[in-house]
C-alpha cells in the first residue's frame, strides 16, 4: 500500500475515532451534569399537581400554590385539619365585639420569622400584619383575592379608588380598619359584620409576608426583586416548613423549620411536593410507593381503587354545573332553562361516569354543615339504599322529563317551531365530554333538541365564557370558605364570576342584606331565599356536588378528609404498625387493605413521642 494513502486512511480513522469519543464524552457529561443534584427520598412525598405559579401568598389562587403556602407561612388563624374551624396560628387568642365589627387578635410571643440558613430571626408582630394587609390591598400588588379583605372597613376603596397614576386615593393608616395597638395586638374593624371573617383569615392569601424580606430585595435587586425575594435562599417565612430547593416542574423540597413556634408537634423533617400533572403517571408513582398522596384520579381508575383503604372519597365544597347564557334566545327564556335543568340524568352521571360517590344536586350550594340549601323544583323521590335499587328515582326523573316537555311546548316550541340546535361548551377533558354527551343524548331523546358539543382548550374556553359567546357552558366552583355566601355572591348582577348575563335586583338586594345581617340564623335564611330565587330562574343548571379524590397512604396520620380538601403538613405523621392495625380494625365496611407506605415503626413528632412513651405505646 502506498504509504501516503495509509497515513491518510489512518488519519481518517483517527478522526472518526475522535469524533465518536467526543460524542460519547458529550453524552456522559450531559447525563452526569444533571444527575449530580440528587436528593434522598423525603419523609413524605406527594404530588402537588402542577408547578406552582408563585410562593407569594398575595398573588396566587391555585390549589398547588395553596398547599405550599400553608406549609411555609402561617396566618393569624389556621384551619383545624378536620373541622376547618379557625384555630390559633400566629394569634394565640382573639375577641370579637358584640356588634361583630371589631376583631382584636392577641399574637403569641416567640413566633419568629426565619430564612433558610437561619441568619435572619425576628419576632412576628402585629406590625407585620398591618404591612401585609396594606401590601395585599395595594393595587400594585394586584392580589387576585383582594376582595377577601374588602370586608374590612375602607379596604375596598383603598384598592379600587385610584388617582391618575394608579395610586390609592386614600391613606391606609387613616381609612382602612387595620391597626397595631401594640407589638402583640392587632385590631381589625369590618365594614359590616361578617360571620365567616375568621374563616377568611385562615385562607392562605391572607397569610403574612415579611417586610424586611421585600424591602431589602427591592434595594438589592431593583430590577427583579419580584423574583429575588421569593428565591429559597432569600425568602423569609414563619410557617412549619422552609423551602430548601425548587426545581421547576420537578419538585419543591420542604424542610422542617426548627424555629417554628409549634415545631415540637411537627413530625416530618422533609417533605417533597412533586409537580407531576399526568393522572396516570401520578397513580403509577403512588402504586410503586414513590409518592404517598395524590389528590386526583382519572375516572376510569376509580373502580379499582374505590374498594381499597387508600381511597375514601368524601364530600367536597364544590359544585359541578352548567352556566346558561341568559342574554340570547332561546336560553333567555326561564322556561327553556328550567326544561333543560329538569332533563339532566344526574344519577347516571354520578354512577356511570364519575363513579366515586359524587352526589346529584339540584342546588347551587353544595352540602355544608349548618345550612340546608334550597333546591330547584323537581319531582321528589325516595332514595332506598345507596345502590339505587328499589327507589323511585326513575319515576321521578320521568316526571321531570314530562314537565320539561310541557315547559318547552309552553315556551312555544313544537313540531311547527322546532327548538334550535344547542351547543354545550366545555374545556377539553374526557369526563366533561362524557357528561356533555350523556346530557346531550337525553335532551335529544326527551326534548327533541339537537345538541352539538364544543370543546375548547382551557384559555379559549375561559375567554368564551368571559365574552358570553356560549349557549350552555360547563362550570365548577370550589367554595373559598364554608359559608353559602361563597356561592350565592357569585351571581350578583355584573359580578366578575357571574358569566351568565343574569341579573336580578331582588337577588342583589338579598345578597346585600345578608352581608349586614347580624343574626346568624336570619342571615342564612336570607341566603336561602336568594339561592331559591336563583334556582327559580336557573341561570345555571346544577348537576352534581364533588367528592375529593385523595388517594393517600393508609399509614399517614393527621390527615383528614374535609369539606375544603385542605391539608397541612404540620399535622402529619406516620403511624407505627400498632396504630395502623388499630385504625384498620375500626373500618366499618369491607375495604381491601392496600400498601400502607411509610416506615413500620412510624414517624412521630417530639411531642407525640413523649406522650407515647408516657403511655408505653410502640413497645410491641
Amino acid at each position, binding site marked *: 500500500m502506498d504509504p501516503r494513502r495509509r497515513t491518510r486512511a489512518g488519519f*481518517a*480513522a483517527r478522526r*472518526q475515532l475522535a*469524533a465518536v469519543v467526543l460524542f460519547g464524552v458529550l*453524552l*456522559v457529561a*450531559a*447525563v452526569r*451534569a*444533571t*444527575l449530580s443534584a*440528587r*436528593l434522598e427520598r423525603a419523609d413524605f412525598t406527594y404530588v402537588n399537581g402542577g*408547578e*406552582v*405559579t*408563585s*410562593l*407569594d401568598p398575595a398573588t396566587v*389562587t391555585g390549589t398547588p400554590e395553596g398547599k405550599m403556602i400553608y406549609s411555609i407561612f402561617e396566618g393569624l388563624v389556621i384551619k383545624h385539619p378536620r373541622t376547618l374551624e379557625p384555630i390559633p396560628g400566629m394569634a394565640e387568642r382573639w375577641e370579637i365585639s358584640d356588634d361583630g365589627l371589631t376583631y382584636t387578635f392577641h399574637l403569641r410571643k416567640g413566633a419568629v420569622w426565619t430564612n433558610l440558613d437561619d441568619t435572619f430571626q425576628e419576632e412576628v408582630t402585629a406590625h407585620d400584619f398591618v404591612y401585609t394587609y396594606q401590601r395585599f390591598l395595594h*393595587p*400594585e400588588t*394586584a392580589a*387576585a383575592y*383582594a*376582595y377577601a379583605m374588602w370586608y374590612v372597613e375602607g379596604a375596598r376603596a383603598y*384598592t*379600587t379608588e*385610584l388617582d391618575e*397614576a*394608579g395610586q390609592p386615593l386614600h391613606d391606609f393608616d387613616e381609612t382602612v380598619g387595620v391597626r397595631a395597638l401594640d407589638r402583640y395586638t392587632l385590631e381589625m374593624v369590618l365594614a359590616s359584620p361578617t360571620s365567616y371573617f375568621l374563616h377568611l383569615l385562615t385562607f392562605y392569601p391572607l397569610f403574612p409576608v415579611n417586610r424586611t424580606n421585600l424591602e431589602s430585595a427591592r434595594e438589592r435587586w*431593583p*430590577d*427583579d*426583586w*419580584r*423574583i429575588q425575594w421569593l428565591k429559597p435562599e432569600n425568602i423569609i417565612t414563619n410557617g412549619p416548613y422552609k423551602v430548601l430547593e425548587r*426545581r*421547576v*416542574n*420537578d419538585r419543591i423540597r420542604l424542610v422542617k423549620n426548627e424555629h417554628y413556634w409549634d415545631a415540637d408537634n411537627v413530625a416530618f423533617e422533609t417533605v417533597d411536593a412533586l*409537580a*407531576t*400533572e*399526568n393522572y*396516570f*403517571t401520578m397513580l*403509577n*408513582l403512588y402504586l*410503586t410507593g*414513590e409518592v404517598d398522596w395524590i389528590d386526583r384520579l382519572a375516572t376510569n381508575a376509580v373502580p379499582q381503587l374505590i374498594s381499597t383503604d387508600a381511597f375514601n372519597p368524601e364530600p367536597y365544597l364544590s359544585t359541578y354545573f352548567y352556566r346558561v347564557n341568559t342574554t340570547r334566545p332561546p336560553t333567555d327564556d326561564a322556561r327553556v332553562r328550567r326544561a333543560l335543568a329538569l332533563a339532566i340524568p344526574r344519577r347516571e352521571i354520578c354512577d356511570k361516569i364519575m363513579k366515586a360517590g359524587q352526589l346529584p344536586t339540584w342546588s347551587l350550594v353544595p352540602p355544608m354543615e349548618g345550612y340546608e340549601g334550597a333546591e330547584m323544583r323537581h319531582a321528589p323521590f325516595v332514595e332506598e339504599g345507596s345502590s339505587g335499587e328499589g327507589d323511585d328515582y326513575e319515576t321521578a326523573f320521568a316526571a321531570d322529563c314530562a314537565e320539561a316537555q310541557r315547559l318547552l311546548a309552553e315556551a312555544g316550541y313544537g313540531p311547527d317551531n322546532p327548538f334550535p340546535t344547542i351547543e354545550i361548551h366545555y374545556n377539553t377533558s374526557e369526563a366533561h365530554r362524557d357528561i356533555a354527551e350523556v346530557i346531550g343524548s337525553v335532551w335529544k331523546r326527551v326534548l327533541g333538541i339537537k345538541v352539538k358539543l364544543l370543546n375548547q382548550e*382551557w*384559555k*379559549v374556553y*375561559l*375567554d368564551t365564557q368571559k365574552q358570553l359567546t356560549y349557549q350552555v357552558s360547563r362550570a*365548577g366552583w370550589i367554595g373559598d370558605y364554608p359559608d353559602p355566601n361563597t356561592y350565592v355572591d357569585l351571581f350578583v348582577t355584573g359580578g*366578575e*364570576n357571574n*358569566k351568565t348575563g343574569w341579573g336580578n335586583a331582588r337577588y342583589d338586594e338579598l345578597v346585600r342584606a345578608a352581608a349586614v345581617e347580624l343574626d346568624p340564623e336570619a342571615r342564612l335564611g336570607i341566603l336561602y331565599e336568594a339561592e331559591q330565587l336563583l334556582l327559580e330562574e336557573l341561570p345555571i343548571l346544577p348537576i352534581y356536588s364533588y367528592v375529593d379524590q385523595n388517594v393517600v397512604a393508609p399509614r399517614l396520620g393527621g390527615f383528614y378528609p374535609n369539606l375544603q380538601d385542605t391539608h397541612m403538613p404540620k399535622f402529619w405523621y406516620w403511624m407505627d404498625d400498632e396504630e395502623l392495625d388499630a385504625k384498620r380494625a375500626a373500618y366499618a365496611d369491607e375495604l381491601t387493605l392496600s400498601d400502607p407506605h411509610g416506615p413500620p415503626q412510624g414517624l412521630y413528632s417530639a411531642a407525640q413521642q413523649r406522650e407515647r412513651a408516657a403511655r408505653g405505646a410502640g413497645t410491641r
Partner: protein
Amino acid sequence: MIGFLARRALWFVVTLLAVVTVSFFLMRSVRGGPFDADRNLHPVIEKNLKARYHLDWPLWKQYLQYIGPLNLDEKGLVDGDGSKPWAGILTGDFGPSFKYRDFTVNDIIGQSLPISMALGSVAMFWALLLGLTTGVLSALLRGGKLDVSMRLAATAGIALPNFVIAGFLVIGFVFWLELLPVAGWGSLRHLILPGFALGAPFAAYISRLTRTGMLEVLSQEYIRTAHAKGLRPRTVLLRHAIKGGILPVVSYLGPATAGILTGSLVIEKIFAIPGTGTHFVNSALNRDYTLAMGVTILYTVLVYSLNTIVDLAYTFLDPRIELEEA
C-alpha cells in the same frame, strides 16, 4: 469553510428574526391571556397586572420592547415602582415567566435544558446502539429469519408512537419485573425507560437507513476488491464497508437530534421528567408569552446549529463531499 460558516451565520440571523417575529404575533393573536383563570379578576386588579408586564401597550411597542433594550416607557424602562419587566432578548434576557412568576425564562431554560439533553443523550445512545447493530446485522444476514424479524421490529418502531412504547415498557419493566422506577428524575435508572421510549422510533429509522446503506456498499466493487485481496471479512466490514454504509445515518443524526430534543414532550409528561419539552407545550397552553418565545428561540438555535454541525461532519467523514458554495 469560513465562507460557508459566514453564510450560515448570516442566514441564521435572518431565520431567527423571522421566527421571533412570526411567533410573537402568532402567540398574541391567540385568544385568552396569561392571567385568565377560572376566577375572573376584579377589573382594577387585572389592569394592574397587565400594566406590570406592559400587556396594556400596543402590540408593536411590546414587540420592540421584547426585542431590544429600548427606552419606550415615558418613565423609562422602569415601570414606576423600580422594577423593569425585562431588558429585551438582544441583551440575552428572555424576561420573567408569566406563569411561573418566581422564575425568569432564563432560569427555567437553564434548569430544564440540561435535563432534556441528558434524556436526549440516553435516547440517542439507544437509537444508535440498536439502530446500527440491527441495521448491520440485517444487511449481512439479508433474507434470513433474523433479518425479517429485525425489519418487522423496525417497522413497528416507526409505526408505534413513543407513548405506546412507553406504556408497554412501564408495564413490563416496572410492574412485572419491578426493575426500574416508574417515573421521576434523579438517577440514571430514571432515564433508561424514557430514553428507550424516546429513542425507539429513531432506532428503527436508523436501522433501516443502515441496512439500506450497507446493502448498497456491500455490492460495490471496492468491497469485492477488498474480499479478493484476501482481507478477512471482519476487516472488510469494519474498515471498509461500515464507513460508507453509515453515511446516510450521519446525515440523519442532525434531524434526529433535533427531533429527540423537541419531541420529548410526551415522554417527559409520562415519565415526569422536568425537561424543556413540557414547557414547549405548556407555555403555549398557559399563554406564557415569554416562556413560549424563549423555548421557541432555543429550539430554533438548536435545530439550526445541529444541522450546520451535521453538514460539517459530512465532509469530515466523506472526502468526496464538499461544502456547497450556494
